[in-house]
């Protein structure tokens, strides 16, 4: 599995905040995404009709996930009836083994890939290389970060943090192309370089946006056309997806095909949507001879088991919650330390990879709710983040952190200090006395107490006012009283 570096969230996010390149890219791109989304929705929908569509999509997803065993079984039978092969992988290692076995059987030397987030979870490219197979990412953004040896910065814009100059340097180093600052030129350099791979690779690897259970159809949405290439030219096609990607019937697709492109890139539709239901037919002369679909668990059961977190499996990976998140918009994607970033990354990384190392992520949110408001499948992300915080604080579940004895002590003392009116008044008077040496211009600059001192590291604490509101009220600033 790809390495999880989420334990370093605080350090990595501080670094990102001081990285001018990253800040510039985020400032430049994030508004572009949010504006494009808003105008694409407004062009075709009223607030009510858009909302109704989200409700419908959320209901379809909740239904499917609530009966996931049934739909996975149905999808499996349909795809095999269509002549395909279906695999069930418990974890990243399992899925990787399956891919490599298929590759070995077909004597594959070169594999071309179109975007698949699950293959990022698996760290598939490195595993393929170790097995002597040369993997090439064909989505332009993924290709750029593959050359750079990095992980995606954003679910749908993996290389958004790279400037044209950096891309030009990468192409110069790897493809010996002449340096240029013309983006169209850079695209055509990539086109030429990847064409050769399209013509010669023996195996195509893709993700799946949706898998329709009834007809056994894998749906892949792309703009560049690389998804079509990867599923047309090689002898073998392997699609890899999370087990939650299944939908009951093709007539469930329209809402998702409307929600996804508008939420993701602000388009009415993407350039290409491919529907693949097995290997090529007897009269086709292109298309793969063999088709495989791998359903992957890799920690998703931990989400499914928790009745609150289950909702996160409805995610269609549109990236809208990232684009609207005040935290993501400042720290970017790499700080989150694994494959998924932003609010959805903060929710799924811990349960999928182990809560301990990702314990900071649920706290990387202001709980402003912007993510929930834009999510096309209405995932209540703030609720899920709070739920995870609760789990972490209560120490339920393995590897999770209960509060320290010190924290518990503070909470108990706090409880004593505020539990009755009289106690609150008493503690307020005491507080005014104790804060005296610390107050400068109405603010407490630092609280010299263990644990609590962290609170004032980056901000001031407002000092207790000389008079409370209750006291001001009693002293005659309240409404005029009836004369007695």
């Amino acid at each position, binding site marked *: 599995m790809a390495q999880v570096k989420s334990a370093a969230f605080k350090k990595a996010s501080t670094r990102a905040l001081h990285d001018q390149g990253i800040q510039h890219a985020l400032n430049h*791109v994030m508004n572009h995404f949010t504006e494009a989304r808003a105008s694409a929705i407004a062009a075709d929908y009223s607030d009510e009709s858009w909302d109704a569509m989200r409700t419908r999509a959320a209901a379809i997803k909740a239904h499917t996930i609530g009966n996931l065993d049934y739909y996975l079984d149905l999808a499996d039978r349909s795809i095999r009836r269509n002549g395909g092969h279906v695999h069930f992988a418990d974890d990243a290692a399992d899925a990787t083994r399956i891919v490599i076995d298929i590759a070995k059987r077909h004597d594959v030397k070169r594999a071309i890939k179109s975007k698949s987030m699950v293959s990022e979870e698996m760290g598939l490219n490195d595993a393929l290389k170790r097995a002597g197979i040369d993997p090439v990412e064909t989505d332009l953004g993924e290709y750029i970060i593959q050359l750079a040896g990095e992980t995606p910065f954003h679910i749908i*814009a993996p290389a*958004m943090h790279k400037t044209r100059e950096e891309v030009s340097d990468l192409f110069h180093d790897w493809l010996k192309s002449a340096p240029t600052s013309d983006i169209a030129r850079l*695209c055509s350099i990539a086109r030429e370089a990847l064409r050769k791979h399209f013509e010669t690779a023996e195996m195509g690897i893709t993700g799946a946006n949706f898998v329709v259970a009834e007809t056994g159809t894998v749906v892949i949405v792309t703009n560049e056309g690389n998804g079509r290439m990867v599923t047309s030219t090689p002898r073998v096609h392997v699609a890899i997806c999370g087990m939650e990607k299944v939908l009951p019937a093709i007539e469930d697709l329209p809402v998702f095909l409307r929600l996804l492109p508008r939420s993701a890139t602000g388009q009415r539709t993407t350039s*290409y949507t491919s529907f693949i239901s097995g290997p090529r*037919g007897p009269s086709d002369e292109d298309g793969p001879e063999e088709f495989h679909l791998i359903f992957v668990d890799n920690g998703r059961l931990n989400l499914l088991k928790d009745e609150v977190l289950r909702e996160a499996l409805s995610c269609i990976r549109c990236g809208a919650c990232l684009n609207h998140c005040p935290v993501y918009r400042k720290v970017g994607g790499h700080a989150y330390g694994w494959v998924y970033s932003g609010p959805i990354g903060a929710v799924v990384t811990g349960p999928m990879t182990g809560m301990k190392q990702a314990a900071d992520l649920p706290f990387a949110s202001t709980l402003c709710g912007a993510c929930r408001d834009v999510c096309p499948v209405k995932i209540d992300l703030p609720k899920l983040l709070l739920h995870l915080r609760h789990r972490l604080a209560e120490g339920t579940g393995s590897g999770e952190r209960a509060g320290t004895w010190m924290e518990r002590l503070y909470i108990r003392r706090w409880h004593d200090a505020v539990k009755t009116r009289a106690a609150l008044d008493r503690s307020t008077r005491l507080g005014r006395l104790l804060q005296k040496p610390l107050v400068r211009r109405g603010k407490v600059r630092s609280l010299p107490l263990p644990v609590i001192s962290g609170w004032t590291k980056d901000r001031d604490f407002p000092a207790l006012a000389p008079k409370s509101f209750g006291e001001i009220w009693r002293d005659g600033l309240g409404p005029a009283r009836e004369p007695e």
Partner: protein
Amino acid sequence: MPAEEHPNKAAFLQRVREALGRSDPLLHMPDHPTLKAALPRQEEKVRTVRARIDVLRAQNLKKLAETATAASWHVHGPIAVEEAAEVVAGIASGLRAKHVVRSTEDVFRRVNVDSALRRSGISPTVLAAGRSRGRSALKGLAFEADLGITGVSYAIAETGTCVVTPRKGIARLTSLAPPAYIALVEADQVLGNLDEYFALTRLVYQKSRGRTPTYVNFISGPSRTADIEQTLTIGVHGPGVVHMVLIA
């Protein structure tokens, strides 16, 4: 013969089931409206869809021209069927195309693209099965061509989409590998929206007792990317120039 069941399937599904708080498989199909619609209900639904398509034909054509233009198609027509071949040849000459490939949909029987192209000095190659050339040679032809032409199964007005269902030959690459592409759309192939398309498709699936086309593509404009600095660039892997010829 279907492939064997994966050895991990039963255990995998059992774990899913237990995570959902059940210990046994469901006895009945879950209650889901789209899945439950059996053949007679679907037939009725499709009758309604067809009636609507008939009534709204003119509007749908107009809407398709708008959405397709918005999606960066160059839209031609609607034109009479007799003129379509000349329009195609005109586009090809305008593109200075030398190597033209086409697929084998029915529309080519009504629109004689080949002779119109020949009159313009272009000799098209039909990328069909049954030719003596091997598969990789055909693949090479598609990659060398500078224009691909196909018919469509449907067009969808809602999204400016051509639905292409490659059946014979190397039809998958005809609309993908060359830098320019022409889609021929006949008026009776135009649907209003995605729901109509999927209702029709599901009926075909039900009627054929579980057979479904191997490969269907929605094409909604040129190949595009914004992966470098979020700057829109067209023609990265697929065609950068796409024409839609509407035939009345």
